């Protein structure tokens, strides 16, 4: 099985993780409807490296990963707030 490295628990089988989707930029206070629509419905989808949210389900650790969406290679993982 494919392995994903949890920043807290080390390499684990990928079926222990839940995918939470691409990192989205924060929405500014008082954003217009169009910005809301883009924030909700558009997400990173270009072929190439992408930063995304994952959760290690048994330990409930939510973290970030950078993964290449053509090769499925996981480039690095880190806890939010920590330096990648």
């Amino acid at each position, binding site marked *: 099985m494919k392995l994903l490295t949890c920043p807290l628990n080390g390499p684990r089988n990928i079926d222990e993780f839940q995918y939470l989707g691409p990192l989205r930029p924060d929405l500014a206070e008082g954003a217009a409807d169009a910005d809301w629509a883009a924030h909700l419905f558009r997400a990173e989808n270009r072929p190439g490296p992408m930063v*995304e949210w994952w959760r290690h389900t048994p330990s409930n650790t939510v973290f970030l990963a950078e993964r290449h969406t053509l090769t499925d290679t996981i480039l690095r993982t880190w806890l939010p707030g920590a330096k990648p």
Partner: protein
Amino acid sequence: MVLRLLKYGLSRGYPVTGDLPPTPDLRASYDVVIVGGGGHGLACAHHLAKYHGIRSVAVLEKGWLAGGNTARNTTTIRSNYMTMQSIAFYKEAVALYEGMSEELDFNVMFSQRGQLTLAHSEATLRAFHLRAETGRHMGIGIEVIGPDEVRARVPELNMDRGGALEIIGGLWHPDGGTARHDAVAWGYAREASRRGVEIHQRTAVTGFGVTGDRVTQVQTDRGVINAGAVLIACGGMNYDMALRAGVDLPIRCFPLQAMVTEPVKPWLHTLVSSVSLHTYLVQSSRGEVVIGGGSDPYQLYSTRSTLDLKEHLAEGAVHLFPFLRGLKVLRQWAGITDMTPDYSPIMGASPLDNLWLDCGWGTWGFKATPVAGKRMAECIATGRVPEVLAPFALSRFARFDLVNEMGATAASH
């Protein structure tokens, strides 16, 4: 049809004709350039040539006809969706499939054997009642049936009485069926090319030249061409292709996997799917059991398969039909699907005047092949979006006016 078949059967030497002429040189310009030689692009080309008299059409396909999702899909055709907008659209799709072999003079082996979706919980059953009422209102064949009728229709099903996955009812959709996927693509391709449409295989579109609000150039690996209008029908590559024209679609790509077993004698006479198990099955006319399910869990542009997903499919299939245990898997594969936030397609106008979208087909677009082709041709020929396509406009996202079909699509395609 029957007479023609008889004549062919009795003719000396079975006259064989090539279905398609070889790929010609690219011309400098076409009235319409269609990017993507899957079922959708080819169906649109056919409708442009046959019903709108537009024959200066080039279909550009980077690989081979139907090599994208068209010949990777599990061929479920049905109209039992959730919303009235979708049902109206997919009902037209099913009707066009009913006449497709005649329309194309090509046997697409449409087999309308009905689809049975199983309920293992009261919550699912309630959702089925809603779908049945809406469907009946829209004039499709659909009803909720009890466990005895489920058993009567598919006696081999494991009803799991008293178990966690007990089958407590089903949604019976007699209009549902299957067709031969590559035949659909080749039938359209042959008819279109007979009327002068050029089909360019092994021709990849690499980008667009945009001036003001118009696409003026289509760049390919065989040279640059001009186009009066452009249709994007690239399946899994729709997001990437639209972005090359500066259009950022609300699409995320996920692989979808399927597999078939070795052939066994015919026993399964309907399509069967279980939402709870994320598994559906159909027996092909060759006797193989085609097994499909839900998408991969994370975004990816790859047609690699994973053992995890295949195990999951096998588990669901063997739960429903325990005697499948021990059958060998003959083939297994994946396709890249272009998923939208509401599990509905994006059809019609784009922010550019002469760029048209036939995108966001995700895991459910094979059934829509004829109607999308017909209606997109109408858009291109008249410059207007027909009413039946209006709900699927790209602009619906900015209006927060989504057509939510997740409940009717996620596991039954």
